[in-house]
């Protein structure tokens, strides 16, 4: 009868075509009819009531609003006929509203049914609670349902419903579900004969155990033994619960999930049994399939993937982790797309386990192939994720190159994420920062629109903080800008970098100041306002860097399109910069437009962005913390990017006695950002012990030989910045200690230590700083320096403080070097060689032949010699490829004339450096210091 009505309605809708109007007309007629029946004088019998309520439901499900019939539905709940009750409950479940009057009536009916001892009615009532799950219902039944659940005489099917009903109430109103005796009895449902009951109970226990792990601890051994019985059963043992020859796949999955609420079992017997289960599951994956049906393999693999999740969760059995990885490796080439997808996804987490990271890496070619050939974008996305997760120093160049080439054709939806990932990997694993700069410029070229501000800000920060890459960066952006059409982001990066470091390439006539300016200005009119504003700042910096282009730039600033620009910001910049260039003296210009100071190192803003994009609890976080853990495993000298684990790593070469003896080693590969020398030693607890200098600090030290300002040291707690000036034999150094945390540093004591050899030659004077450094605050310490006589060693700065409960102890070499007391001396070719000959005594000359450690760039070399402190003498050496310099070292007792000559051999990538001074020790020291710079 009902079916006929629906059929009629449906047919008539079909017959009437898609006319919405006709449908509404037909429905309204029916609604009017039902309304009149409900309001009629004659009381409706149960059957009619059910019929009309059901019609209302049908109409509602067709997409029409229903605003009456609730009362009739509630009336049906108290019927004794199943069909009437069922329609009543269905109406309530689908069309519930929080009309308090009705809720009271509904709850009353539910209460009666729960007490009816009729399993069918109890089931309907429980399903209604589980569907609605409102707070009112929790208040009314949260105390009652546990009793139903654990009562001895409750039917199995009612137990199943009661368990899940309770779960629903616990999710909506955990405060209303009282824990009590019933919890232990619920745990024992894992042993129930009826696997349906176990299935429902496992869900309930899992959710409860997440919140109250202690209370449900006993579930672990019960779950293990239940799981063990299932996985070892023959495929026919479980009869009803065997699905395509797989015994109880869903229950197995749920039990494995429950076990993921806990660490590996402590009891060795339980643990052994669980390991056996997991091995059995892995073994079964290798057995020939019992059926060709996809249902068989899906059910089997559902269990397998959940087992692998548990293995990863425990992260304690290397053997199982590697086996899991091999199994997933097979799936990577499976013909089922689903399996390839899931294998990529699952491997992503395996990549972050120290035990399986290497095993995952062996699949790199397959994953790269997936990136190129998979048809489903979501599979390619997983391949990108996996490449990102398996990336380390050994394979970074290959992975970054593959991601870049994929980016050319990547789906628009995932481009931005790939850009972020490439940028992070390039920074994290850059051994050679020229590679980093190339990679980022490639990113901009390939996917400029998807390169967010964070990415291009970051490349500028890094170039500014790393002077070994500045010349290369300037040259590279200059070349990239020559492309006829380049992305606006490139113009921004190019403008900024040339404005800071254009001077490093200005010596080459192909990139003379005027050519640089014209190149940038040719892009100006095509750019948006913010970019144009940036370019105007570049121009004024050019005025400072290159006085020869000042008139050209002033002309541009003076033009109407600038001075009268409709945009306020542009107009203001043009006016101010023009004025500045006209009135300011060279000195003032140089001060105002000084090179940007290094940026403080914080967590990479790009990483922050990726995390934000991915949500707080995704692979990225996990992967990051794990990656740090695996540093030792990978062997390579990994940088410590914002790591927390590095804090607890004791310095491997804790040689306290060798403290002062560390000579400034030749600059090796530059430490990655934020790396610096990590010297925190949390294990030494005695305040009198000075922390050893850790490897890496020499690199930072070497960077200060040719410059005076920058970040000397940084870890996750503390940043030390320097600013210093020297004149003749005197100097002054400002040390800035920045507390990067939000917590106070207590007993903060920096100490300057000069060895016995150094003490008579170098006078350092300073005042103690405030022992408390507030979170986020920076304190400054001034050191007055006097050079009494020439010296070789460097003083050590030791800092001790308390952070939280731990004692921190950091030592760094303070970059006060002999060359700081250089005064440049200009001289003509003739004078130079005359003096050169005068210093021909073998004790006066020191020579060093060494391999270039940085790109051999003329402009960079010049800048370094000037930074070293000597005058750079042009047109002195008959060979124009050579560099010569001269200067005087001022000490309190004497002045020492120094001549130097640097001969590059481009073909062999070698240098020969010769130092001649009147004192052997000075020649020796200066030669050491300068050799480390190239």
């Amino acid at each position: 009868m009902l079916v006929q009505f629906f059929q009629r309605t449906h047919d008539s809708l079909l017959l009437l075509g898609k006319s919405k109007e006709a449908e509404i007309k037909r429905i309204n007629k029916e609604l009017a009819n039902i309304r009149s029946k409900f309001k009629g004088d004659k009381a409706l019998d149960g059957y009619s009531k059910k019929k009309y309520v059901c019609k209302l439901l049908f109409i509602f499900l067709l997409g029409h609003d229903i605003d009456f019939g609730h009362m009739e539905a509630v009336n049906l709940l108290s019927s004794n006929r199943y069909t009437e009750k069922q329609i009543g409950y269905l109406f309530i479940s689908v069309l519930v509203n929080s009309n308090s009057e009705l809720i009271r009536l509904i709850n009353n009916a539910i209460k009666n049914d729960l007490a009816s001892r009729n399993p069918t009615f109890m089931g309907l009532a429980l399903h209604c609670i589980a569907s609605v799950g409102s707070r009112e219902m929790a208040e009314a039944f949260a105390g009652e349902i546990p009793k139903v659940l654990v009562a001895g005489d409750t039917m199995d099917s009612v137990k199943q419903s009661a368990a899940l009903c309770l779960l629903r109430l616990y999710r909506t109103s955990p405060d209303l579900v009282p824990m009590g005796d019933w919890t232990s009895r619920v745990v024992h449902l894992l042993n129930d004969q009826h696997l349906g009951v176990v299935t429902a109970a496992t869900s309930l226990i899992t959710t409860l155990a997440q919140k109250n792990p202690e209370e449900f601890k006993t579930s672990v051994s019960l779950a293990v033994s239940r799981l063990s019985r299932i996985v070892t059963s023959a495929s026919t043992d479980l009869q009803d619960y065997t699905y395509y020859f797989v015994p109880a796949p869903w229950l197995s999955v749920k039990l494995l999930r429950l076990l993921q609420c806990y660490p590996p079992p402590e009891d060795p017997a339980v643990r052994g049994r669980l390991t056996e289960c997991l091995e059995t599951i892995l073994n079964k994956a290798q057995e020939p399939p019992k059926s060709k049906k996809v249902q068989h393999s899906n059910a089997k693999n559902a269990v397998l993937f959940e087992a692998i999740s548990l293995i990863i969760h425990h992260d304690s059995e290397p053997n199982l982790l590697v086996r899991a990885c091999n199994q997933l490796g097979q799936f990577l080439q499976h013909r089922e797309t689903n399996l390839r997808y899931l294998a990529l996804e699952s491997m992503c987490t395996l990549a972050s386990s120290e035990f399986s990271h290497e095993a995952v890496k062996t699949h790199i070619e397959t994953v790269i192939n997936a990136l190129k050939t998979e048809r489903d974008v979501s599979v390619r996305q997983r391949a990108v994720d996996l490449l990102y997760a398996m990336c380390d120093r050994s394979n970074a160049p290959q992975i970054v190159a593959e991601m870049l080439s994929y980016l050319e054709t990547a789906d628009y939806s995932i481009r931005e994420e790939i850009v972020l990932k490439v940028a992070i990997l390039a920074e994290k694993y850059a051994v050679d920062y020229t590679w980093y700069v190339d990679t980022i410029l490639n990113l901009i070229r390939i996917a400029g629109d998807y390169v967010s501000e964070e990415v291009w800000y970051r490349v500028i920060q890094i170039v500014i903080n790393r002077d070994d890459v500045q010349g290369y960066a300037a040259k590279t952006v200059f070349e990239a800008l020559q492309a006829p059409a380049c992305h606006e982001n490139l113009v921004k990066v190019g403008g900024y970098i040339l404005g800071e470091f254009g001077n490093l390439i200005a010596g080459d006539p192909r990139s003379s100041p005027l050519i640089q300016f014209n190149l940038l200005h040719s892009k100006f009119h095509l750019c948006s306002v913010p970019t144009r504003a940036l370019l105007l700042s570049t121009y004024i910096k050019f005025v400072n860097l290159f006085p020869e282009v000042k008139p050209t730039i002033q002309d541009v600033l003076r033009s109407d399109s600038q001075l009268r620009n409709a945009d306020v910001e542009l107009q203001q910049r043009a006016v101010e910069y023009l004025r500045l260039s006209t009135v300011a003296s060279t000195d003032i210009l140089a001060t105002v437009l000084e090179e940007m100071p290094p940026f403080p190192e914080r967590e990479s803003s790009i990483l922050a962005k990726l995390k934000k994009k991915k949500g707080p609890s995704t692979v990225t976080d996990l992967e990051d913390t794990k990656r740090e853990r695996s540093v030792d495993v990978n062997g390579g000298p990994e940088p410590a990017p914002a790591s927390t684990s590095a804090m607890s790593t004791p310095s491997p070469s804790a040689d306290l006695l060798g403290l002062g003896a560390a000579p400034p080693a030749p600059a090796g590969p530059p430490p990655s950002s934020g790396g610096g020398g990590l010297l925190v030693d949390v294990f030494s607890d005695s305040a009198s012990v000075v922390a050893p200098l850790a490897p890496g600090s020499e690199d930072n030290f070497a960077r200060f030989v040719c410059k005076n300002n920058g970040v000397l040291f940084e870890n996750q707690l503390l940043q030390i910045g320097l600013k210093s000036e020297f004149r003749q034999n005197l100097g002054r150094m400002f040390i800035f200690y920045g507390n990067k945390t939000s917590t106070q540093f207590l007993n903060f004591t920096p100490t300057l230590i000069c060895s016995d050899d150094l003490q008579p030659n170098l006078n350092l004077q300073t005042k103690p700083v405030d022992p408390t450094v507030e979170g986020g605050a920076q304190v400054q310490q001034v050191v007055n320096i006097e050079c009494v006589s020439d010296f070789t060693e460097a003083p050590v700065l030791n800092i001790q403080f308390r952070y939280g409960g731990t004692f921190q102890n950091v030592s760094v070499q303070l970059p006060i070097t002999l060359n700081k007391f250089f005064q440049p001396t200009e001289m003509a070719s003739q004078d130079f060689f005359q003096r050169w000959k005068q210093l021909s005594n073998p004790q006066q000359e020191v020579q060093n032949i060494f391999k270039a450690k940085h790109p051999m760039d003329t402009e960079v070399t010049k800048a370094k010699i000037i930074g070293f402190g000597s005058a750079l003498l042009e047109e002195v050496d008959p060979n124009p490829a050579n560099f010569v310099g001269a200067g005087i070292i001022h000490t309190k007792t004497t002045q020492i004339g120094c001549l130097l000559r640097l001969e590059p051999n481009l073909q062999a990538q070698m240098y020969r450096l010769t130092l001649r001074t009147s004192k052997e020790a000075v020649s020796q020291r200066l030669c050491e210091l300068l050799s480390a710079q190239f």
Partner: protein
Amino acid sequence: MRLKRLGELCKRREGLEIRFILIQNRAGKTRLAKWYMQFDDDEKQKLIEEVHAVVTVRDAKHTNFVEFRNFKIIYRRYAGLYFCICVDVNDNNLAYLEAIHNFVEVLNEYFHNVCELDLVFNFYKVYTVVDEMFLAGEIRETSQTKVLKQLLMLQSLE
């Protein structure tokens, strides 16, 4: 605003569970919607449209999984009908994929070769089947024999 709400709900809940089950035809007509989270009617309508949009563009070479807001949809197509289950991103894809198939086999047995119209005209029975197999967003019963036995028992009461 709706988007945000869903996101918040996702964060608040830690348990893994089905968020909703949808059966839609290719034209986007809903043949069954079972919600395990509180949504208002507008939200429900929006979700229904979005699921239809993401699922129907995929072909047989694609996976049976698709990311959906902060969740994922596990789906399988049977003739003109899409059976979709929305779960947490960490949940077991294949377990739910086969749960769908298990459900479809029960429907097929119960309605003797089920077709779209069976679901339309017997909607109140379909809800009963769903409740037997899935409750409170969890898998309740997986044995086809047990479910069918219970369904036949209930039918005998009509």
